[in-house]
């Protein structure tokens, strides 16, 4: 495999770009692996990479029912941030953000991580106070934050509707180290780096059941035959309960659809990630020029990877309230992905009560930014049979113990997180 560098680029430019080898192998599944990771999304691929890199476990397969990166990792609005308040989330997401900061070098793959800042708008005095508190809390935890006055926001984003009668802009809270990354590149970068360390990436391989010996999970049934494993880790996002059902494991998870939208391409207009504070709407501009944005869940259990019209209307209404110029734009595409919504809005990275089975789920709409941190922590949990310092609070039994991590304070109602 080629090491990507300015020299390999030059050499291949001279060769008319016909000499690039494929980025990863396409192996046949072996009969047995030390670890099988189910799900070839960002989290599964990152888990396999860190198993090999941090723990020297390279006899690993990632089993993906479709193609690598075809799930939520290739469907999200690519926002990366760590502006959380509650223990459990703060240390985990900040660890993940630190990994993002070195990720392109680490993977030898340009994930186009762009720390363009994430700005949450405030629309009242009360909201400014709440943001001041949140910003301070972030700083106490070593996470960067900056409270912006109305003029400071206006300087950065003059096109916002500052004098909107219902939702005037009072200022905002910024996380300067937040931003976006190229979602596909994250999947491909982790895939290539894992493959280079010996991990087998097996596509078109759906896990349909588990092999159990004396209660322990010792392998999986797949559409490409039975594959045995020392340990099995699940990282299948919205499909989690369809698999855990097969081993009788009940979870605090509901599957919901989240939609995303992209406009026609524009010249550079939006330099940050900006979120509306009077509803739920977030927007950024991709390097191709399209405005990428989204809002709430559709709000009912679903496994259909497509959304419904009322939510589209809702998202557009909020967008236009925040940036009136959006009303003149044409929408190019919109799509949906199935989210693993947890009962407290926070993720689960843990062993399960079943020997040999490990669980990574509950990402709600925030799992893209978690990709490196999730893989790092899940690999640690699988390799050492105990959580890392960054996921000690993200346990499955926290619900029964009364230690939920409900950042939004909306209770056990997944559609509200």
């Amino acid at each position: 495999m080629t090491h990507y560098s300015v020299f390999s680029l030059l050499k291949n430019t001279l060769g008319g770009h016909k000499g690039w080898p494929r980025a990863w192998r396409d192996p046949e599944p072996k009969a047995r692996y030390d670890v099988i990771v189910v799900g070839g999304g960002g989290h599964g691929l990152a888990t396999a990479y860190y198993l090999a890199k941090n723990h020297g476990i390279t006899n690993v397969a990632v089993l993906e029912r479709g193609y690598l990166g075809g799930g939520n990792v290739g469907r999200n609005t690519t926002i990366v941030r760590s502006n959380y308040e509650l223990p459990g989330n703060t240390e985990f997401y900040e660890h993940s953000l630190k990994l993002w900061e070195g990720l392109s070098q680490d993977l030898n793959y340009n994930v186009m991580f762009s720390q363009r800042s994430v700005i949450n708008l405030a629309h009242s005095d009360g909201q400014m106070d709440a943001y001041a508190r949140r910003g301070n809390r972030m700083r106490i935890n070593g996470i960067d934050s900056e409270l912006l006055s109305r003029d400071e926001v206006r300087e950065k984003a003059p096109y916002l509707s500052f004098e909107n009668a219902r939702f005037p802009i009072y200022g905002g809270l910024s996380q300067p180290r937040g931003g976006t990354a190229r979602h596909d590149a994250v999947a491909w970068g982790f895939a290539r780096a894992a493959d280079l360390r010996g991990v087998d990436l097996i596509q078109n391989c759906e896990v349909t059941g588990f092999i159990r010996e004396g209660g322990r999970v010792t392998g999986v049934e797949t559409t490409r035959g039975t594959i045995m494993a020392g340990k099995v880790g699940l990282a299948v996002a919205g499909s989690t309960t369809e698999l855990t059902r097969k081993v009788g494991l009940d979870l605090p998870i509901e599957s919901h659809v989240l939609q995303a939208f992209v406009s026609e391409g524009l010249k550079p207009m939006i330099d940050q990630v900006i979120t509306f504070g009077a509803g739920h709407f977030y927007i950024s501009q991709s390097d191709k020029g399209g405005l990428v944005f989204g809002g709430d869940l559709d709000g009912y259990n679903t496994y259909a990877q497509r959304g419904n019209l009322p939510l589209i209307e809702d998202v557009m209404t909020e967008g236009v309230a925040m940036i009136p110029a959006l009303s003149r734009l044409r929408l190019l595409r919109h799509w949906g992905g199935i989210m693993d919504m947890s009962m407290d809005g926070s993720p689960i990275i843990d062993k399960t009560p079943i020997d040999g089975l490990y669980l990574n789920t509950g990402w709600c709409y925030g799992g893209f930014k978690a990709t490196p941190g999730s893989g790092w922590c899940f690999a640690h949990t699988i390799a050492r049979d105990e959580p890392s310092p960054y996921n000690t609070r993200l346990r499955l039994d926290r619900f029964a113990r009364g230690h939920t991590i409900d950042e939004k304070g909306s209770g056990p109602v997944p559609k509200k997180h």
Partner: protein
Amino acid sequence: MIRLDCPHCGPRDQTEFNYGGDGRIERPGDDASLTAWNDFVYTRDNPRGPHVELWQHTAGCRQWIKVARDTLTHEIIAVGTMGDDIEAKIADPDRGGVEA
């Protein structure tokens, strides 16, 4: 747009309703175990297929109703009042629901 046939008001758009989640959960008795209470509050079946769920007709009669809906296809399989036996309606070959 999902349309639900409210047993009190007739067919209405989903925007008139508030979603109330899994409708098969039963509240445990006061003396039930902590595990039973944990399951009541936090554990969900989350099927990929037929799902019995609660909706409230907030912009209509304000009644809670039961809906059997396929979470993969959005097909409305059956609709009933809170007192109706929705499981029997699901089993009934002449279902009363309106297509999504």
